[in-house]
């Protein structure tokens, strides 16, 4: 898996993942319509996802549900090399 993360092509990461037990949504792209209705709200389960990441000098796959049992701060920002 590490090999594919270092190749030129974007690896086929899963992006947002459907909640367990939702048989109507597949794990492969294109993103099923079902997932688009899952919007983050306080008091509700955070939408799970899997994607590529850069961490401690290496590329790896990160899945939100791998952090179950820990507090997670998920921060979005407009882009690398921006000013603020």
């Amino acid at each position, binding site marked *: 898996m590490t090999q594919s993360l270092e190749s030129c092509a974007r690896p086929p990461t899963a992006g947002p993942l459907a909640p367990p037990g939702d048989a109507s949504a597949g794990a492969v792209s294109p993103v099923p319509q079902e997932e688009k209705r899952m919007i983050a709200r306080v008091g509700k389960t955070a939408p799970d996802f899997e994607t590529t990441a850069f961490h401690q000098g290496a590329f790896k796959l990160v899945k939100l549900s791998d*952090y179950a049992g820990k507090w997670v*701060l998920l921060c979005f920002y407009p*882009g690398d090399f921006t000013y603020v």
Partner: protein
Amino acid sequence: MLSASTDSHFTHKIWQEEELSKMVEGGVPFPMLSDGGGRIGAAYGVYDEAAGVDIRGRFLIDPDGVIQAMEVMTPPVGRNISELIRQVKAFQHNRATGEVLPAGWTPGQPTLKPGPDLVGKVWQVWKPVKIDG
């Protein structure tokens, strides 16, 4: 801590090596996630389709995977880390003790124990700090 933008993991690597490592010793310690296409941002309501980027949004997720707090801002203004840390400590305190934290609570200040005895008596316990201006 996980950060995410629509940049690729390759771009994250160069940003870390060329700039962030000069601002933070050793570089930022958390995974930098690639949200190519903004699909994750869309699920969190922070993907700006016109600009093609994720706007500034942060989500505090508890050990059960439940979102406890969120903050979403337009791009020009940066975040206030001290308020974020206050929220993390408050939610962790609530989770550990069941006590609730009144407005403006900071660690070390009195907490509230919900129950019939507290109804109408919050004024006796809660002494908010006055803020100038």
